[in-house]
């Protein structure tokens, strides 16, 4: 049963990837082939698919007539670009100066401990991922964590547990509802 599920999921992921590549190959033609469009193109791709897939990087390099390593050179230089799919709930922990002084690293550690992943990683179920960022610009609310689009200010270790627990309850609820539907 499990094997069949995995096979099915794998097909599903492959399908998703193909659809993504097709979509990007269409979108990319909105841009000119000049080098100056490299960063806007990468931003467009990440904006749509949340990360830069290796195949996409190749496609972009091909389109702009650049070496693949050149594209990687630029993409890895900037903090914005990611090369692995983030989790459903992407957690950004701010470690700007104000957040650092107010214990931002303790918050980061708490997320890491609770989710059992490190900064830059995604949980195996692709539910959560953690990223440390330099400053989200809400210094008066330090320490700050951004989950998805929501900014949480004045985060304490106990609030970290609450946040994650909230998502887990939500997930279980969803699973139950789906189970009821199937049943």
């Amino acid at each position, binding site marked *: 049963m499990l094997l069949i599920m995995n096979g099915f999921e794998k097909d599903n992921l492959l399908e998703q990837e193909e659809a993504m590549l097709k979509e990007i190959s269409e979108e990319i033609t909105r841009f000119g082939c000049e080098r100056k469009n490299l960063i806007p193109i990468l931003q467009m791709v990440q904006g749509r698919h949340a990360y830069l897939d290796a195949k996409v990087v190749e496609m972009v390099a091909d389109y702009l007539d650049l070496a693949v390593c050149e594209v990687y050179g630029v993409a890895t*230089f*900037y903090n914005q670009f990611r090369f692995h799919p983030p989790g459903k709930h992407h957690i950004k922990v701010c470690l700007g*100066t104000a957040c650092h*002084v107010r214990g931002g690293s303790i918050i980061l550690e708490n997320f890491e401990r609770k989710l059992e992943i490190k900064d830059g990683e995604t949980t195996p179920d692709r539910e959560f991922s953690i990223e440390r960022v*330099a*400053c989200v610009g809400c210094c008066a609310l330090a320490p700050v964590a951004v989950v998805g689009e929501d*900014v949480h*200010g004045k985060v304490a270790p106990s609030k970290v*547990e609450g946040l994650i627990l909230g998502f887990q309850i939500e997930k279980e609820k969803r699973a139950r509802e789906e189970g009821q539907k199937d049943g």
Partner: protein
Amino acid sequence: MDENSQVSRVASAYAAIREQAKKSRAELLKEVVPRIHVGLATCGIASGALETKQAFEETLFQRGVEARIHTMGCIGHCYAEPVVIISNPGFPPIFYQNVTPGKAKMLVRSFLEKGDPLFEHLLGATEENEMIPQVWDFPRFSQEKRIVMEKCGIVDPENVDDYIAGGGYQALAKALDMDRDAIVEWITSAGLRGRGGAGFPTGLKWDLAKKASGSSKTIICNADEGDPGAYMDRTILESNPHQVIEGIAICAYAVGAAEAIVYVRAEYPLAVKMVTEAIVQAKKRGFLGKEILGSSLDLEIDIFQGSGAFVCGEETALIRSIEGHRGMPEHRPPFPVEKGLGGKPTVINNVKTLASIPPIVEHGPDWYRKIGTEKSPGTAIFSVVGDVLHAGLVEIPMGVPLRSLIFDICGGVPNKKAFKAVQIGGPSGGCLPADFLDTPIDFDSLISAGAMMGSGGMVVMDEDACMVDVARYFLEFTQNESCGKCTFCRIGTQHLLNILERITKGEGREGDLEQLESLSRDIKAGSLCGLGKTAPNPVLTSLKYFRDEYEAHIHEKRCPAGMCRSLTAFYIDLEKCARGCDACVGCCPVEAIFTTKNRKKGVDQTLCVKCGECVQACPPEYNAVVRVSPPELAPIIERAE
């Protein structure tokens, strides 16, 4: 004759647009209903302003109360977010702070329905009246001098008419009637210095660009705010983007450019959205595009989203990144004003610099000269954060001493703790101790104290902050952001960081401090751009002013502030601990707290991660959790059998 006919054409074109804007504003303000202004910039949203706005909407609907909700930007009072200003007919506009959804409901029921303004929740009135004290009498308001942020939080950033009706774009109309040389001359004699950090005279930059040969020139508005602790550029773009656009247009006219780029960080999605919208609206009103206001000026503004590299604050690196390369700085000269983007003359100005232009053109250089000091005229914006009561953005005239900024305007250090240091200028700046509190704030006196204006980030630290750890933090940042071009910056910062990390872990050695100093000097001398040249500043200033702290770390393996976690421990004072109280147990994220045989609590030092949650959780009447450094001072407490 020809010149004269153009003069009247620009002025009359502007007058017609302003009349139209006033009319549409008047149309909007015609009905006499209460108006609720909610601040919806990033910081407001983070504190829950969207929920507050929703609560207002729901309660108004449920109770059948008629009122209009307006959104505005940020007024810089971040400590008070979510901020709401209510103008109820019969009352002056009243400023409410920390308006939670519950408070919002209460305000509708009491103030809007029954006319009780809830004195216990208001901060003050924003207009003169006989009923309620004015906010302008509070030092946080009265000692500020707002030029750049004058309209932030007052105009609706999504409605260009609001800006125009209040006199916006008037300076552009005036500038278009002036001679180009005269504008550059005005900016020069106003003494405006670039607000990006280095303080280069803006007039000189414009003059060089104006004289540069080449027909197509570009203006770049630098909003790549990378300093982890400064957010005024974001606030200005989110709250009043048109003032920046107006400044760009004046600059374009003065130097003869037809293209402009706003380089804004992609991490600021709301700012990107606001600027994009503002450009569209400005174009609709004829302030951008072809033959602006009937003059000879053509200007198009594009947006480029910066992908997050601190080094791109450096002009040449920023240009490289727009061209689609890694953002690595290049040798200067040639300076960008001669050979910049695509090899063409390029003026790069900071958001605050460009936003200062319209007021200078409007009121003249002499007016601007009167504000601030002789060598640094005008105002400075600081984001005062950290251990300070009224954190937020503060715009003050240059030359105000640090003490008045931190203690009078921002309310000083909270929780009865002592002031220890202030970090000015982010990763390029330095930490100044209490002895420097009477230093006037301007470009030159900060540099002579070892710090710098930088981007205006100011982090206040109380007695609990460890200066070695702060220096380590900044080095970690600059090391990470070093582009890798210059050897001393690339490898030298890594060495500095390694030494600092060792010291904060209690593994410091004799000779470390001397090595830190000599390495810092070499990095400063051997780096091409501002990042490397200033990266050692946090280390050098903290070594200069807080050397005893470094020595305590190295010789006594002790962190005087109790911040460095390898050198501290928490224990529970059994004399003070209350029998049977479990407050700390539930909050501990690693279950390090156990019960002793007389039903008091102890901390398992092998499990403890030193997060300090138990200190917060312990009820103040017991206050039993103690932090000690070095960790050997913690007594051994036995578990119950």
